[in-house]
């Protein structure tokens, strides 16, 4: 039976990782991620987690170390945040191109300058094009569960997965959650068996130079695997729901409005919790809205999004990351997906928070109530 526990988000992540039995962990501390690897290092030290913990001098080395350990056939883990994730950038591309599985947890935090350590999704959104799968979590329970599902998907896809928690909002707050038993996880997640691995007895060349045509073919296969990943993730989530009785979807309908509600609010990560309260307040006061959270950013679940939003006249996108000169990064993703609809809803691109700027339910209520004043073409700053 699962056990209830009250844990910090970072500890919940560590427990999720521990249940997946990684053989190698390598990471470099950075606020607000540090608790995750501290907890893991204590687990390794006490012997409750049998794993090689590699201390490194930078995030670049951390990701490079697991690139090596996974190439050697092990299940591995790393975590980072903000500047640390940015420092990994070069290897993030290489890692994905090497077609190796991994789960990396990123605690979302702003990138300087100016100096700021608070919650902001610019760090992971700016890694959208590295080829990694990206999943954003609303709660610590969701993060713990997602890590278990992510290992399963990653190893079947031979693709790395980044799991996001909001820095401080999740990482540093306590939550009551359920910890699955090791047996439940072992039944769900078999040990990793690498199709190829570094082996002195059977030398192979990993990631050697590929001529243009071969390179193109490998990238095409990559892209096709990403498309297949949408189905695989659905399957993983369904299997997880069956075994653990907690249901996840790539895009989740968090609050249903009236039958004739024509406005949807969409966001991703921990802000969804605030938005749930806001939409309850709105519905109580006669403004009916539907609330959606996007869990999967890469591969982008276009079909699921279209299905969710097809009858809406207005979609209000709450952004925690900005692509300067265009607008909210999440808004762009949603606009692009909706282009395939014969009749496009209005997309209001709202820059609701950056660098930890506090989001209150009232902030969201006001945005929805004043929706007629929002620009449909330009980003809306508060």
């Amino acid at each position, binding site marked *: 039976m699962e056990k209830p526990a009250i844990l910090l988000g970072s500890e919940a992540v560590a427990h999720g990782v521990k249940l997946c039995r990684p053989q190698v962990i390598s990471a470099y501390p950075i606020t607000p991620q540090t608790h995750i690897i501290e907890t893991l290092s204590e687990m390794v030290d006490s012997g409750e987690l049998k794993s090689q913990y590699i201390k490194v001098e930078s995030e670049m080395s951390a990701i490079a170390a697991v690139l090596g350990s996974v190439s050697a056939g092990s299940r591995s883990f790393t975590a980072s945040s903000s500047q640390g994730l940015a420092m990994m950038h070069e290897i993030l591309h290489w890692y994905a*191109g*090497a*077609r190796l599985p991994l789960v990396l947890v990123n605690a979302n935090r702003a990138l300087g300058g100016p100096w700021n350590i608070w919650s902001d999704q610019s760090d992971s959104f700016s890694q959208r094009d590295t080829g990694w799968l990206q999943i954003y979590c609303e709660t610590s329970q969701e993060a713990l569960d997602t890590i278990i599902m992510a290992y399963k998907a990653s190893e*079947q*896809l*031979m693709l790395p997965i980044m799991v996001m928690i909001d820095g401080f909002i999740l990482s540093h707050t306590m939550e009551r959650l359920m910890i699955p038993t090791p047996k439940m996880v072992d039944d769900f997640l078999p040990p990793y068996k690498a*199709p*190829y691995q570094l082996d002195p007895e059977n*030398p*192979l*060349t*990993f*990631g*050697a*130079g*590929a001529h243009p045509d071969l390179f193109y*073919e*490998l990238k095409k*296969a*990559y892209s*096709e*695997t990403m498309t*297949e990943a949408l*189905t*695989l993730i659905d399957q993983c989530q369904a299997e997880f729901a069956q075994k653990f009785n907690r249901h996840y979807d790539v895009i989740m309908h968090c609050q249903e409005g009236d039958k004739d509600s024509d406005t949807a609010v969409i966001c991703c990560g921990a802000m969804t919790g605030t938005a749930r309260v806001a939409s309850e307040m709105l519905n109580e006061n006669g403004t009916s809205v539907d609330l959606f959270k996007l869990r999967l950013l890469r591969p982008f679940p276009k079909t699921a999004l279209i299905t969710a939003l097809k009858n809406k006249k207005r979609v209000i996108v709450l952004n925690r990351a900005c692509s300067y000169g265009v607008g909210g990064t999440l808004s762009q993703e949603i606009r692009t997906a909706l282009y395939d609809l014969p009749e496009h809803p209005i997309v209001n691109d709202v820059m609701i928070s950056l660098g930890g700027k506090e989001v209150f339910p009232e902030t969201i209520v006001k945005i929805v109530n004043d929706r007629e004043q929002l620009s449909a073409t330009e980003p809306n700053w508060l």
Partner: protein
Amino acid sequence: MIKLKHIEAIRNGDFTGLPISNTSTAVNMTGSWKFFRPTLKPKKSPCLEACPLHILIADYMQEFAAGNHLNALEILRENNPLPAVTGRVCPHFCQSACNRTDFDEAVLIGDIERALGDLGLTQPYSMESQECQEKAAIIGSGPAGLAAAVFLARSGVKVTIFEQSEAPGGLLRYGIPAYRLPRRILEKEIKNIVESYSIDLRCNHKIKSTDLDNLRKEYDAVIAAPGLTQSSIPETWPETPTVKGALELLAAISRDEPIPGQDFVIIGGGNAALDTARSLKRLGKTVQIIYRRTIDEMPAYPDEIIEAQSEGLLLREETVIEEIIDNGRDLSLNLHRSRKNGDRIEAGDFIETITTDFLIAATGQESSGDFLNCNPELLKAGDFAHGAASVAEALASGRKAAETTLRKFGRLPDDSITDQETQNLPPITFAALHLNYYSKKPALKIPQLDEQTRSDNFSEIHLGLSLEQLEIEAERCFHCGSCTTCGICWFFCPDVAIAINRESDNAESQILFDYDHCKGCGQCAEVCPRGVIEMEEDL
């Protein structure tokens, strides 16, 4: 159900989208990008530089630490014919120069040398070439004579040694007390040399000036290494039986002759003074050393001074004898505080008058065979050639005389002095080492007889450790400038362009650089713990 063809293929192990190849990357000749190439450049270690014999210490330490004691002995003997002797009596210039001193403590090279020397007592010396026609005569069987004999005989020369005393060894036998160099060790080592190289050793055979011409006719070369066997007695001292030279006294003690008298005053601050004083003390005599400068200025080896002091020897520093009164049966000495007058030392304030049975001069030594000096063509070696010096220097001098002789015979090319000697590069410094690869570890403690146990006998003071114990000590060696095939370069090379062949006998071919793939990044040179790899321009 949607078909997931890639995921299926991954599951079935026939996915072609993984960037993995069973073709080698060797076809890509990345070596053409380089502007610098690494080369193996072994360098002199400071111990080798400091050693008069230029012993390949860093190399034999490697063999020794690996448990290959006989290989280590062979390397040691290449340059040192008497390791059991020098392991005991050499002041170990090598240890004073050891780079490890700046890290924790010097490696106990001397103790390892001694243990190897003892191991060698039962191991015959090896020959380098077949016997030849040339014959050489060596006058004197001290360290210089023995070294000359070994290096000549090793090249096939037939050697005869003429020794005026009843037994070989010269100063090693008659000058160095047995508590520093036990007689049985000396005898065994000399016997091993004589037997290994079939040396014709003729004791009780004094060479007189009249014999020289005949020797020249009979032998193709003559080397004179008679040593400085006579103490110089200051001219101002009275000629009386109660005034003696230190060397003569040491020789008498060595021959177990009875030593008359009870009170002894020894003048001097060198090893001869200390050896004589400590020997007399062991015979139950009352001894004091009078030295005109401070104890710190004494030319004797510092360890000897410390040991002598711990044995309770009375050392009177900054004292001179202003007047000697010969009482017939004994002597009265007027002692004064010494006073510096420029470079000279004079008598200052009167201290006291003491009476002694014997006054011993240990202020210098001279040759007892002055006739040999007159012959400018005579090839000389040892103290006789260069004045009183250490045993190691005498051995080096004997070896040099042997090399001169071999060159004369045409059996050694002119430039064949060992590479290390001709290599003018300075030895590798402490700063050039990569200390991250070494951990601090103090030197072993070498047991010795306590003062009580050794006070009335000539038992060897230093007890030594076993070969196995000393392996741990040898592991402390940095092997400065010497490749140990540790593999750090191999580990760091990002192009897999370094191969290590530990089986190779030739040090040069143990590290192989693949210049077709080396990009010249220089990491190997950067990480080498011992400064052996250098980058050279390669355009």
